[in-house]
């Protein structure tokens, strides 16, 4: 019976070609636009570190003085002062913990004649590599002793290693960063979690991978330049090691929820302890965000994209309203046919089913068109200059979702018109003809 309905559906669509094409176009546009944005969202809100993200937490404390005016944000920006980061690091209350900051240094190529170039990377502490499960192609990270001794060691990203040493690993060789020679002790395999959750969350959180890692204390001693927000309060200079400038990120690994609870309590007691020493005067309110929670809290996905998603869903809604109206019109136009069928014994349910199949046919056609438009949309997104652009790819789950959305949308769009049409009384229509 469904096959017969599908055949009559295609037949009747053929008869009102212009309206059918219009409906397919409108569904296609709505589905295409919204699926482009939904796919981008799906890709960007993915887990940057599957398998480990559940155990990673970003602690947040607020070392600022009491608010003096309304111009400052009520929430801390999540960055740490040097003393706080070092205290938490040395307390070792988590399974693993690391402090870090983004940095940029001039790299001087080993061959003479080549000009120095800038590279961005990260100053981190020893646990960074094990905590984030950084894969190495050669060598490894450094030890806690190296941290304390401010060792001149560096781990290179795969691209920088290739740039400097070609296809061989640079482990054991020396690179000159700014004015200092560093011994290469490891080379990271292509590792580029998206978003770069451990960095300060800003417009550049998607995109380029870190190309070097070197000990934070070493970078501090050599006064290497760091990137990102550096905010200070009170007077007494903007010293990086002072307790009134926040600029470091701090991450901990906690293997169970009970450990997370314990760590939260530790943060609270740390805060109270600092208050006893005359610091951190704000009400004690330590937070511990899980990785995914942190990304949501910090709006890792740009607000512009959220707005675009809402807009595309609004567009889909208008398209669907349009299709409902057009379907209603095409169904009611066939009042005569329907009342004849009803007079010949078709039940309401039969009419409903027949018209439902008809809207499904339109939905499938619109879905196909929408898929094409979504692929085109994603292609155009990939041409954008933003860091997330390259991630905008259709995958199997999104492909299926596109079809499902098109089908569900068209069935829903067909429900009301079909319901209205199946209430056409038999015979009565015949009389008026």
């Amino acid at each position, binding site marked *: 019976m469904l096959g017969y309905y599908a055949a009559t559906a295609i037949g009747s669509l053929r008869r009102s070609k212009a309206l059918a094409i219009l409906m397919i176009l409108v569904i296609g546009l709505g589905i295409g636009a919204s699926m482009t944005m939904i796919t981008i969202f799906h890709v960007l809100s993915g887990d940057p570190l599957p398998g480990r993200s559940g155990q990673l937490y970003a602690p947040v404390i607020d070392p600022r003085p009491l608010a003096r005016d309304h111009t400052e944000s009520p929430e801390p920006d999540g960055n740490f002062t040097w003393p706080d980061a070092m205290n938490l690091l040395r307390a070792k209350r988590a399974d693993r913990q690391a402090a870090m900051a983004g940095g940029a240094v001039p790299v001087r190529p080993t061959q003479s004649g080549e*000009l120095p170039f800038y590279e961005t990377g990260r100053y981190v502490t020893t646990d960074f590599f094990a905590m984030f499960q950084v894969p190495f192609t050669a060598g490894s990270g450094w030890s806690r002793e190296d941290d304390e001794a401010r060792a001149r060691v560096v781990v290179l990203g795969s691209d920088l290693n290739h740039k400097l040493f070609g296809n061989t690993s640079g482990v054991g060789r020396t690179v000159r960063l700014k004015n200092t020679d560093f011994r290469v002790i490891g080379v990271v395999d292509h590792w580029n979690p998206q978003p770069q959750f451990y960095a300060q969350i800003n417009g550049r959180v998607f995109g380029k991978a870190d190309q070097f890692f070197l000990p934070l204390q070493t970078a501090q001693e050599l006064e290497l330049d760091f990137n990102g927000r550096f905010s200070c309060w009170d007077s007494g200079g903007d010293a990086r090691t002072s307790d009134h400038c926040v600029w470091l990120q701090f991450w901990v690994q906690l293997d169970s929820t009970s450990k997370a609870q314990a760590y939260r309590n530790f943060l609270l007691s740390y805060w109270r302890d600092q208050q006893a020493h005359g610091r951190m005067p704000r009400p004690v309110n330590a937070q511990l965000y899980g990785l995914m929670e942190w990304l949501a809290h910090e709006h890792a996905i740009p607000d512009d994209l959220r707005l675009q998603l809402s807009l595309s869903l609004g567009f889909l809604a208008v398209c669907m309203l349009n299709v409902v*109206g057009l379907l209603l019109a095409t169904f009611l136009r066939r009042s005569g046919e329907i009342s004849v069928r009803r007079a010949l014994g078709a039940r309401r349910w039969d009419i409903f089913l027949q018209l439902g199949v008809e809207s499904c046919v339109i939905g499938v056609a619109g879905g196909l068109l929408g898929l094409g438009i979504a692929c085109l949309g994603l292609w155009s997104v990939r041409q954008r200059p933003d860091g997330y652009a390259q991630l905008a790819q259709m995958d199997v789950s999104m492909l299926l979702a596109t079809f499902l959305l098109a089908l569900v949308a068209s069935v829903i769009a067909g429900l009301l018109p079909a319901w209205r049409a199946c209430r056409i009384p038999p015979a009565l229509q015949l009389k008026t003809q």
Partner: protein
Amino acid sequence: MSHSPLIASLTRHKLTVGLLVMQVALTCAIVCNVASIIGHRLAQMRASSGVVENELTLIESVSVDESANQLAKHDTDLAALRGIPGVQSVAAVDSLPLSGRNWSNGIAFEPNGPSMTSATAYSGTPEELRTLGLRMVAGRLFLPEEYISLDAAHDWTGINRVPSTIISRSLAEKLFPGKDPLGKVIYPGDGPVRIVGVVEQMLRPTLDESESSGYVTLFPMLPDTASITYVMRSAPQDRDRILQQAKRVLTSLDSNRVLRNPQTFSDLRDNYFRRDRTMISLLLSAALALLLVTAAGIAGLASFWVQQRRRSIGIRRAVGATRQDILRYFQTENFVIVGAGVVLGVVLAYGLNMLLMERYALERLPWFYVPAGALVLCLIGQAAVLGPALRASTVPPVVATRG
């Protein structure tokens, strides 16, 4: 023409009419808000940075050799850059409007007092104001003896010793509303700083939504960092050549440096607003697509109604209605439907705006977008119905006699 049959016929299609009204309302609400977002972004993009944008060329130099006397190196570089034919003036600066490198200080009226607002601190060599082409509206330029080192090596403590500042007019109005700011003392750091001049306008390195985008303080501090931006002023047509020459000149002076982002100020502006441009083109196409879909829906339904009513149109023609009457009937019907949609749309537009303000910190919908959007939708509705209505008006009276 009496409107009662019109209303009566609309009530016979309650569902369809309701759907159309809803669609027009949603379209109206979305398009009004989209237009307001576009307008706001365009205004931001058009904001004058205060500098002579089409005459400036920039190049960043990062010296790898930190031990050297940076001030002396900058002087050597500046002298060499000044020698490039076509360069009218050149300055070394720590940051520029729209460059993204922002150093802000809280501005207080007393030592360690509460900060009234925060303002960007720009530092540069004595030719900075002339090179950037900033327009002074009051006061004087810095005196040679006022210049001190920024002292980046000691946490930028120059800010605590600098004697004078030139501020932007918008900052002056924020700090001293209605008063003459000249001679007033502010505390951007530990020490007192006297305001000696006011420039008409200068943007901060990064803009935000608020009016504070123009809060700027200029200081007579020489940037002594290893990383420095050289700004050259020239005739617009010389910029590209000067950029190439500047790269060669700086590399030949000292190859132990990294040159970054050689660009004209126009490039810098383009880069800064790249995302906004993408967003605007996206919003624009979304709004157009919405209007198109709605127009198509109106036209589709109208032509369906015309077909359905062929007989009654024929009867009306037979009993004396002119073609004009039929045409006007469908136009009026469309106006009633779209008008109802627009009225509902205006309410929805403000509702949507409130939601957007809350969720995305967007600005309030300026009132004129709403009547403009309503007008556009009414016009589009009329345009969409014109074809079907004209077809209706050509239905011959003889149709009434057929069955």
